[in-house]
């Protein structure tokens, strides 16, 4: 092991910023991070062991105790649940003879849940040793169980288990045609750097991650910073449940994304760029590396790009299972080899980002659009969309519809149009923008996808009339509690309290004041949390409470108060140990009021 770790440390130039990448390799080899590895890395990277441990304990894909040689994770997104995930994981656990959350006694396999893996259009999905599994069903699971029990290496598993499809159903401005390699860059250089920034400004392009900051303004600010060492970061930590368009863009349009980054680098004067790829998209890693290599060979990356004296290269950083890293400053922390805890702002990344240097962080789709604008000019983009939301938006559509997949629409398109196209009937409502977004009811389908109405990073989950909205709210609320980084009090404690209070109501233990208490707590978490995660964690409850108050009220008891825990259940141990089965050994959950 010493030699193995020495080798990895050396390949990573003993840089502590590469800690995540190093730990990924150790986890992959040993299925945990052994104590000896921590000790050795601490010395090799000159960082305290506490930093290594805090990173291991922060990311879901790192473990201090051994996992199975086959680490199976099943996606816990609401879309997977809608496709029968619960009964599948039970079936899988049963077949494998392992408890969910545990390692089988022989150490061969471990099974657990994981947050949405970005395969919502081809679920139920999972990961085995980090590689995506799609369209899981019972026959598929039987195959997987057999392969694991035979201890077949992953590269001998049938390819169909790992097949990931693009499922592009509707193309627009961006997806219609591929730009030839290098053309965006050549156009930008030919037009001139300043003029290209002006075109991007004219295009009205706003960040596609959801927040919608104007791209040209961000690039302009960064280019005006005094510090000359600057960075470009492409945020491909697509963790919002129900979003998977960046996966498709990186699978089929990666050159354009890289070209957009290179245009950005030319404009802001950056020499180094990073693609922060979520760990769940490990299956794309090698392909992306070879595209980067190809671009270097073609003179589109590296030194003296296109002979124009431009130096720029791109490195891929893989995440390790933490939704919070989609927040740009948490992403930067993660790139620096630390736990993904959002920074205090100001300063913003454009002034102090990666290693404290000016940094542009943009979404995959933003760079793709920027490349298109560099070729076709600002008007090409600005002529489409609405006054405040120019261009098109690529949606990831999943849930109850005939054709889940990728759809590109001009901004301003109504929800109804989208529903018609994807083949959704008898629709109860749509979750727009993922758990952190908004739930809209079937009374609001004339609303428009645009920053000024329904802003979205692209997640669009359809629910038909057979679905129970509270199941969805429950899933999302637990998701946020699981993904809270824990930095600030309102989110760390508040998301757990939200989970408890919601469960109390859903499980039928809620009484008159409990919905009011829930709403109060929602406001507290929303108004006082440090970053977007906490500020939006209550949205699933707030947006459904606003639309379906009766749904919550109907779960409440007609009494003034009921315990939030199972009273009779709390006596179970004592009952069993005292061998008591008389009536006095039980407690009613509700107080029996003799005066009524």
């Amino acid at each position, binding site marked *: 092991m010493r030699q193995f770790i020495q080798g990895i440390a050396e390949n990573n130039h003993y840089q502590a910023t590469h800690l995540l990448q190093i730990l990924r390799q150790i986890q992959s080899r040993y299925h945990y991070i052994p104590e000896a590895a921590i000790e050795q890395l601490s010395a090799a990277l000159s960082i305290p062991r506490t930093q290594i441990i805090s990173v291991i304990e922060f990311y879901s894909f790192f473990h201090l105790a051994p996992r199975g040689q086959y680490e199976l994770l099943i996606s816990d997104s609401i879309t997977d649940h809608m496709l029968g995930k619960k009964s599948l994981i039970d079936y899988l656990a049963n077949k494998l003879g392992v408890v969910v959350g545990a390692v089988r006694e022989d150490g061969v396999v471990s099974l657990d849940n994981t947050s949405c893996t970005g395969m919502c259009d081809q679920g139920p999905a999972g990961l085995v040793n980090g590689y995506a599994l799609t369209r899981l069903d019972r026959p598929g699971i039987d195959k997987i169980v057999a392969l694991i029990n035979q201890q077949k290496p992953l590269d001998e598993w049938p390819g169909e288990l790992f097949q990931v499809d693009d499922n592009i159903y509707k193309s627009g401005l961006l997806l219609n045609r591929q730009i030839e390699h290098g053309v965006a860059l050549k156009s930008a250089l030919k037009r001139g750097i300043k003029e290209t920034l002006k075109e991007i400004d004219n295009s009205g392009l706003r960040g596609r991650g959801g927040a919608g900051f104007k791209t040209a303004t961000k690039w302009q600010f960064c280019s005006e910073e005094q510090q000359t060492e600057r960075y470009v970061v492409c945020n491909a930590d697509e963790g919002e449940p129900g979003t998977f368009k960046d996966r498709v863009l990186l699978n089929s349009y990666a050159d354009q994304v890289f070209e957009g980054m290179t245009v950005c680098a030319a404009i802001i004067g950056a020499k180094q760029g990073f693609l922060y790829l979520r760990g769940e998209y490990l299956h794309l890693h090698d392909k992306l590396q070879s595209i980067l290599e190809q671009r270097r060979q073609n003179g589109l990356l590296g030194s003296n790009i296109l002979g124009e004296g431009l130096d720029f290269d791109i490195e891929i950083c893989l995440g390790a299972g933490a939704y919070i890293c989609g927040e740009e400053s948490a992403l930067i922390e993660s790139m620096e080899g630390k736990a993904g805890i959002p920074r205090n702002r100001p300063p913003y990344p454009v002034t102090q980002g990666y290693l404290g240097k000016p940094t542009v962080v943009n979404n995959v789709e933003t760079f793709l659009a920027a490349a298109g604008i560099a070729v076709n000019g600002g008007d090409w983009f600005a002529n489409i969309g609405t006054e405040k939301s120019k261009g098109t938006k690529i949606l990831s559509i999943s849930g109850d519809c005939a054709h889940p997949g990728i759809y590109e629409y001009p901004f301003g398109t109504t929800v109804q149009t989208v529903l018609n196209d994807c083949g959704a009937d008898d629709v109860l409502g749509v979750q727009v923008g993922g758990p952190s977004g908004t739930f809209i009811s079937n009374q609001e389908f004339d609303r428009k996808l645009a920053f000024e109405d329904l802003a979205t990073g692209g997640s669009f989950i359809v629910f038909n009339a057979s679905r129970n909205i509270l199941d969805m709210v429950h899933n999302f609320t637990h998701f946020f509690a699981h993904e809270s980084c824990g930095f600030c009090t309102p989110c760390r404690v508040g998301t757990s309290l939200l989970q408890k209070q919601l469960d109390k109501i859903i499980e039928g233990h809620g009484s008159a004041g409990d919905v009011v208490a829930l709403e109060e707590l929602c406001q507290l978490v929303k108004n006082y949390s440090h970053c977007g995660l906490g500020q939006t964690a209550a949205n699933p409850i707030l947006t459904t409470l606003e639309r379906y108050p009766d749904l919550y009220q109907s779960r409440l008891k007609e009494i003034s108060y009921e*315990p*939030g825990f199972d*009273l009779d259940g709390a006596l179970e141990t*004592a009952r069993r140990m005292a*061998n*008591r089965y*008389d009536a006095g*050994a039980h407690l009613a959950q509700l*107080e029996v009021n003799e*005066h009524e």
Partner: protein
Amino acid sequence: MANKIRVATTSLAGCFGCHMSFLDIDERMLQLVEVVEFDRSPITDIEHCTNCDIGLIEGGVCNSENVHVLREFRNNCKILVAVGACAINGGLPAMRNHIPLEECLNEAYLDGIGVENPQIPSDIELPLLLDQVRPIHEVVKIDYFLPGCPPSADVFWKFLTDLIEGREPSLPYELVHYD
């Protein structure tokens, strides 16, 4: 005097320290009984409370009997008050919450040093233990909280005189203590 304010008190999983502190109002007790009559309370030996204005609860909820008593108080008291640290957050008894109940019982009745004739007590007269000690506000609705271990005599005095004289009870800084 008719229409005296009826007060009931009890100790659940507590040590009676709050009751002792209450008695520390000393001679002010004479003023108090001018306007207050005690219903169920360790002071009176009345077994069940009926139609009370104020119920003072000391201690948390550790067993099934505590639940029954607490419910009786809630049903019969217009205003229910959590008195002292244990009623408010479980207090000292709740420090057993980290140890599984099974281990607690094993240690106390089966495996502990010096245990003779090891057996878990089993009698329908005995209340069963809850797996965790709970503050009373997690079992019934509570109207007021008097923190302290115990709350000082002045806290009882300030709170009760506020209520009796029709003011919204409030505690000044000097009277708020958790220890």
